[in-house]
């Protein structure tokens, strides 16, 4: 097992933790945190698998991950703005279906 595989496994762990938190938390800020951690896990798998070499790693996944980080921050900003809007309308930073059950 090489270091690249170790980091890929950590990435998978982060992704699964994120999915779990996304499902069980009702608070939207926590859901946004969970999405970000899921994204970090995916980036980690991508870059770890690009590092399966002795020489310089593959630059294509690195470029994709940089693009991904920038897209993630813009999605986070939009999600946070939507959360504040929902909070301003309903008084709660949660989605409605949480209280139906």
């Amino acid at each position, binding site marked *: *097992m*090489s*270091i690249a595989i*170790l*980091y*890929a*496994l*950590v990435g*998978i*762990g*982060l*992704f*699964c*933790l*994120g*999915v*779990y938190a996304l499902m*069980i*938390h*009702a*608070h939207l*800020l926590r859901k946004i*945190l969970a999405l*970000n*951690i899921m994204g*970090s896990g995916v980036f980690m*798998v991508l*870059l*770890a*698998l*690009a*590092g*399966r*070499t002795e*020489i*310089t*790693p*593959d*630059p*294509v996944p*690195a*470029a*994709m*991950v*940089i*693009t991904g*980080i*920038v*897209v*993630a*921050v*813009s999605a*986070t*900003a939009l999600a*946070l*703005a939507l959360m*504040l*809007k929902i909070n*301003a309308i309903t008084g709660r930073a*949660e989605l409605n279906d949480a209280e139906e059950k």
Partner: protein
Amino acid sequence: MEALSLLQWLIDGLIGIGLLWLAWRALFCPELFKAIVLFIAFGLLMTLAWVRLKAPDVALAEVAIGAGLTGALLLSSWAKLRGFDANKGMGAREKNSEQAEQKTKRPFFHGLYAIPLLLMAVGLGYGVLQLTPYATGLSAVVAENLDASGVSNPVTAVLLNFRAYDTLLEIAVLLLALIGIWSLGIRPSVREATPDPVLDLLTRFLTPLLLLVSAYLLWVGAHAPGGAFQAGSVLGAAGVLLILAGWRLPLSLAGLPLRITLVAGVSTFIVVAVLTMLGGAQLLAFPPSQASLIIFVLEITATLSIAAILAALFLGSRPDHSEKI
């Protein structure tokens, strides 16, 4: 040699365990504020992991955007949520939201959720372990064509030449997110205050430094780790700092000049794309002789646009509205 590799395994193991632990704490600790701070720490540790994976370009982007800007965005949203709660009769509300959080905690079902997730983790892990331990991917192809790309940093070559199409769409996504936020019509926060003298002084010192770092990252990106995204996010961070210190864009600049800066990146990209197609080449296929110049122009406008968009994302409402208060 043996000792060195053992030490490396130790470092990587600690980073891996630290990442998982920080993620766990950030996701499941009961206080929201603590969770956000832990998430910022998680971003910083991710930066170390990127360095260990020999991806310094990604580490630069992560530390400026993933840890810095995302953290600032989360904290400012958290403060706005709290401010909202405080306005609406303090204690009762906070208790309500806490009760709501308690109510949705149903440990039995959550245990059930964990089972398919564990299966998924095992399946994914098995898939990764089945992969060949050595693979070079596309690095050979990139290295072959690097001379024709106009820059010598392979990551910048991929971002702004070989896969420039992705970068065009990425800046468009940033712009779309900003348009989405502006169209929500959120009222600007009225916290117009005289800034803390310490913060004010710090901002005056830091802003020129951030400008310099940003320009350096932009220039160095052609042949070393750095580039438009890192430079843009450092410049955006300078904007965030100025906003936090209470500075606002003068009204004369908040209208058309700001909008021109916001769309400069994507429109330059589109103009270049159309010009390359008119020249008989494919979309965004730069002629090798001019590639260096084209990339530089694209990077400058992209840096300015990314910085303006990120600072505007942080402000969260249309600046020309907030000016009237």
